[in-house]
């Protein structure tokens, strides 16, 4: 990739509008990822590209903002006792493997079907995985919110936890004892997805919840550790090629560090199923967004014929839907925080009243 670096990469001139856009998207992306462990990248990368940033620079700058954000979020949530560091590191190590394999698959598809084929593959994996996993997460969240937000360990996780296949691993914070051989595939799939669609958390968090049997809170917090490790490794790689536009990174970071902490605080206000609701909603809306992008790639491959105006509209609709996904997540998080805070204030006032009349 050194040849790319040798080329004169166009780093854009920043104006006030683009700075404000990046800051706000950074903030909302941070808020969502502080809450569900990942997010933001799927809007930021296309968003930066629409500002005229070259694709590689957008990916590199985005990744370089992702790992410090994940670090700050992980630290904050570790203080709340939600992070299972051991699980995070095991997952991150296997995810690293997944990324390598994912890149190989991408290259193979690129060689065989060209750029359009690669884009179609990415979009199709997006839609298929997000619809299946997101649909399941959303349905489960709705089910548990009806039963008062009680979190239950899935039958699959219970069955896997019972299988004795050494080496067994005990994850204390997640309170899970499971064979290493069931943990690695989840991490591997996370890495594979991260290499394909750049948001590994969409498979990592549901994997930890439904396959390993960790709670939504612990899974989303642990995902931040994975994001940190992978983001760090990726950023070093991109920075060595000179692809990181530090200005973009720092502007996004300005918003996202504020957001990620607010999101992390938000997790302490809500019940476990809220994380699943936010995650499921975002995944489903993002799936719609990516679905809208598919006709363009099909046309590039010569499979269908679509007019250029339609394509323009579809691409705009796709990007707007993506922003809506993030916006919906942010609204749900802030709304549930607001409700919880109001309830807490009411409770405090009641306690204060009781206190002032004495305990007797």
């Amino acid at each position, binding site marked *: 990739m050194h040849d790319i670096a040798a080329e004169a990469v166009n780093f854009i001139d920043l104006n006030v509008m683009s700075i404000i856009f990046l800051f706000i998207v950074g903030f909302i992306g941070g808020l969502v990822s502080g809450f569900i462990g990942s997010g933001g990248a799927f809007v930021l990368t296309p968003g930066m590209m629409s500002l005229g940033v070259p694709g590689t620079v957008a990916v590199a700058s985005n990744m370089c903002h992702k*790992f*410090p954000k994940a670090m700050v979020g992980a630290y904050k949530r570790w203080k709340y006792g939600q992070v299972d560091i051991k699980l995070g590191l095991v997952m991150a190590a296997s995810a690293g493997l997944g990324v390598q394999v994912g890149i190989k698959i991408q290259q193979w598809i690129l060689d065989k079907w060209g750029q359009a084929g690669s884009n179609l593959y990415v979009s199709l994996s997006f839609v298929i995985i997000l619809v299946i996993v997101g649909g399941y997460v959303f349905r489960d969240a709705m089910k548990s919110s009806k039963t008062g937000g009680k979190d239950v360990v899935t039958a699959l996780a219970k069955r896997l936890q019972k299988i004795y296949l050494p080496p067994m691993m005990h994850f204390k914070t997640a309170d899970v004892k499971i064979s290493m051989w069931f943990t690695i595939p989840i991490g591997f799939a996370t890495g594979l997805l991260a290499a394909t669609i750049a948001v590994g958390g969409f498979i990592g968090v549901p994997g930890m919840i439904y396959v390993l049997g960790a709670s939504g809170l612990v899974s989303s917090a642990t995902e931040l550790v994975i994001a940190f490790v992978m983001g760090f490794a990726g950023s070093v790689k991109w*920075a*060595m090629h*000179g692809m990181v536009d530090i*200005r973009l990174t720092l502007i996004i970071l300005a918003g996202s560090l504020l957001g990620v*902490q607010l999101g992390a605080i938000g997790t302490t*206000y809500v019940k476990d199923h809220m994380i699943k609701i936010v995650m499921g909603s975002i995944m489903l809306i993002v799936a719609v967004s990516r679905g809208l992008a598919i006709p363009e790639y099909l046309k590039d491959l010569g499979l269908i014929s679509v007019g250029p105006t339609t394509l323009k509209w579809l691409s705009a609709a796709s990007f707007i839907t993506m922003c809506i996904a993030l916006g919906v997540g942010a609204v749900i998080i802030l709304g549930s925080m607001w409700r919880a805070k109001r309830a807490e204030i009411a409770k405090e006032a009641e306690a204060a009243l009781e*206190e*002032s009349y004495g305990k007797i």
Partner: protein
Amino acid sequence: MVRRNSKEEPKQRQGSPNPGDPGTAHRVNGPATDAGTAPESLSQNGQAIPAADAAGARLQPGENRKILVAGLQETFTAAAVDYAINLAERLGYEIIGLSVNPELTPSGGFLTPYKRHLREEFAKRVNAASTGLKQKVAAKGLRFEHRVGFGDLGKAIEDVNHQIKRIEFVITDAKIDADEVTGAVSLPVFSIKGSQGERIMAEHLSRSTRPIGKTIAFGVAAAALYAAVFTNSDTVMHYFTKGGWFAALPIATVFAFSFVHGAFANYLWAALGIEAPKKVVQPRPEAKRPVRRQRPRPELRLNA
């Protein structure tokens, strides 16, 4: 401020009235009470009598039942004093005041001369403060005695309870949490808060300070870092995109920014009052316990 010192416990058990002992109460002023009378009254006829009787009919002449008003200052809150005086007047009880200073305890079993001096000073202040109180109580025709104690409040109360008999219950003022005392004391303890309660609550709320100073400090530092990068953006971009070992520059930069700006963000939310509501401990699923089986029990049956 550690009030309960486990090292001091053996001394306390001996019940030594030595003023040097922590938690020991000693009289400052007021009439002497005969600490030895009560146990004798219990065995006057050579036999133990039920406590209820002892508290009722067999009161020694000149000895009255008492209310102990305890506090951690030289004076007590008006609410506690008023309540105690009213109650004592109605019931015909005496009032004992007990001011406990929790800090002047011996360190390593030794009371330094300076601390001894401070204790005397404290006793003097209590003496001075109690004159007004004494007059107030005397106006109602009640007897009042003010004592001082050092160390743990509960132990001090218990000591006074041993020395002076017939203390019926304890009234603490609003500044003391009733739970602090009840564990060590074998008397009923009532906390009088009244209008004082609200004041204490207000103090408590204002005490949860918001880190405005830190927010400003880190905000300025973060702004300075941003200004440094963006005013020299041409130079920065030149070196940061060189690749190779220059990769350390953007990585180190984002770390530095995330520490400073992250700290600013942390304090900013705290300053705005947005904080985690409680100590969050991940709820763990309950461990499965073996089901308790109902065993057949032998039954007594009558076949008639």
